[in-house]
């Protein structure tokens, strides 16, 4: 019987031949990802009280990214507790201050097609770019998984988004997702799986595909998915892991899909979301001229190598405008190393960008770069809820790294394509 990719992975994890949409089944978890904010700090004391340890320490990946490096004593204490817990529980896959969990996890070869993975963070949908079923859970549910290795799931339906044709220069996966947030709404997918297909997706490097599945969270999806292809297999091999049988982890065309949305990306303009929701996105031409004080390139969504290169394309030979601060927090230490090796970092710093540590940073309002009352920021991150990046009266616009960099150069929100003289996008 025909099945979606999500159904195939869930059926395998539930040790079943097939599963029906809406059915509640119990699955064995292949891999668990946790970070410093929602991880040991919250699950450790509960496991201790229950008198049990982690069911399988080899299946746990722990990453510090939210509070790093510590800026106050409370954060330092949480990080200290996290390190000690990792040692006590024998967690070998512990990445301390190496970057943001959603980027580090695939970088270090932990993801491959067909895996059933849970993460202690809502942007865990990102992992679906590698053909696995990965979703975010809270800390209490995480305790259940760590104790038993199992979790219940209501088998989601799949919404297919067929992205056709090629993106124009200066337009990126981020613009696609902002446009989809506006079109479908933040609850648009009602906790179902959202799968991206089509030649526009096939043409993307993994780091751009990750932006699609990352922001599937903003569509209200339980999971974002992209079926694996040669690009996926190559990335996984380079990360030191055998990608396995990628042909097995494809959805059937005849399977039942909840909806199929066609999305021709060829005429897509750069998009900007207004405060305070990604679903308010519109073409940049409609918000042109809005003055900003801060431009932020960071987070799991918008500071991977491909994102830094987009910013560099705009910033090459230019300077950040007077009175504007451009903050760049590369998504991982490997991102920083690669950007240093290929000259991207130099372009950014010569333009006047301030480099910040790799981590979640100001995206969620705790790290460096938070906003004062009344300030305006344009950011390459995924969310701009009221007060998320700092003071309650601050306002955050969302755009691609191209658009954020262009605003940093001109001091106002503008169409980045006007600054891309060579007319060649990051995909070129």
């Amino acid at each position, binding site marked *: 019987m025909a099945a979606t990719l999500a159904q195939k992975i869930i059926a395998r994890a539930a040790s079943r031949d097939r599963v029906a949409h809406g059915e509640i089944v119990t699955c064995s978890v292949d891999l668990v990802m946790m970070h410093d904010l929602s991880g040991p700090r919250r699950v450790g004391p509960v496991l201790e009280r*229950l008198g049990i340890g982690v069911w399988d320490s080899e299946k746990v990946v722990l990453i510090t990214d939210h509070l790093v490096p510590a800026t106050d004593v409370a954060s330092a204490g949480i990080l200290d507790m996290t390190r000690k817990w990792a040692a006590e529980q024998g967690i070998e896959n512990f990445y301390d201050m190496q970057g943001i969990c959603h980027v580090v996890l695939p970088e270090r070869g932990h993801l491959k097609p067909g895996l059933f993975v849970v993460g*202690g*963070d*809502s942007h865990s949908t990102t992992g679906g770019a590698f053909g696995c079923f990965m979703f975010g859970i809270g800390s209490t549910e995480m*305790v*259940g998984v760590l104790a038993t290795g199992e979790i219940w799931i209501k088998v989601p339906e799949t919404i297919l988004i067929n992205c056709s044709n090629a993106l124009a220069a200066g337009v990126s996966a981020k613009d696609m997702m902002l446009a989809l947030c506006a079109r479908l709404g933040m609850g648009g997918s009602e906790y179902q799986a959202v799968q991206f297909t089509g030649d526009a997706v096939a043409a993307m490097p993994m780091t751009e595909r990750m932006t699609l599945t990352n922001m599937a969270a903003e569509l*209200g999806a339980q999971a974002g998915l992209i079926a694996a292809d040669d690009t996926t297999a190559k990335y996984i091999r380079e990360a030191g892991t055998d990608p396995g049988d990628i042909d097995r982890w494809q959805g059937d065309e005849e399977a039942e899909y909840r909806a199929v949305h066609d999305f021709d990306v060829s005429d897509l303009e750069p998009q900007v979301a207004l405060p305070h929701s990604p679903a308010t996105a519109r073409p940049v031409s409609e918000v042109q001229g809005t003055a900003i004080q801060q431009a932020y390139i960071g987070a799991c969504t918008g500071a991977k190598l491909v994102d830094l290169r987009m910013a560099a394309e705009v910033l090459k030979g230019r300077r950040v405008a007077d009175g504007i601060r451009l903050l760049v927090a590369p998504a991982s230490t490997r991102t920083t190393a690669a950007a240093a090796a290929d000259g991207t970092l130099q372009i950014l710093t010569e333009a006047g960008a301030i480099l910040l540590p790799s981590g979640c940073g100001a995206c969620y*309002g705790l790290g460096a770069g938070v906003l004062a009352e009344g300030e305006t920021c344009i950011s390459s991150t995924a969310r701009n809820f009221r*007060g998320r990046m700092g003071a309650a009266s601050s306002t955050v616009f969302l755009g691609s790294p191209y658009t954020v960099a262009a605003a940093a150069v001109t001091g106002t929100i503008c169409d980045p394509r006007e600054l891309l003289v060579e007319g060649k996008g990051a995909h070129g």
Partner: protein
Amino acid sequence: MFGDDIDTDALAPGLYIKGPLEELARHCLEAVDPAFASGVAAGDVVVGGHNFGLGSSREQAAQALKTLGIEAVVASSFGGIFYRNALNLGLVVVVCPAICAVRPGDILTVDARAGRIENQTQNESYDCEPLPDHLMSMIEDGGLIPHLERKLASERKIGGTT
């Protein structure tokens, strides 16, 4: 009563997330209704619109409501992770498409197992999605952790007698 798209940054503001739960709860929903935390009483029902609890996986969003003594949250739909978190913490969350008929201050009785909400003030009742037995028994135990505790204790008892 709240409208659509109440997000987890409003329920559990990031600025207070490192601190104690009671402090965080005092700031619950202040971005949309500054008087909310000081105005609610134990046993109150929070009514929301579409996609209540969208956004982050931070379960302090549900914990803050529970700390304030909220009995149940009824909304036309929920953010998926918030919904799971709330149930795991023993907070009743009920999907009810007709809930928009409720007015602020109405007295509600929520029967999640039966999938029924009685509005005593307006003398109406609304159908909602019933919660399956295995989730209700977890909620009745006080959430996933007490539920696990009970399960482990009974397993140990069985283990001890053999």
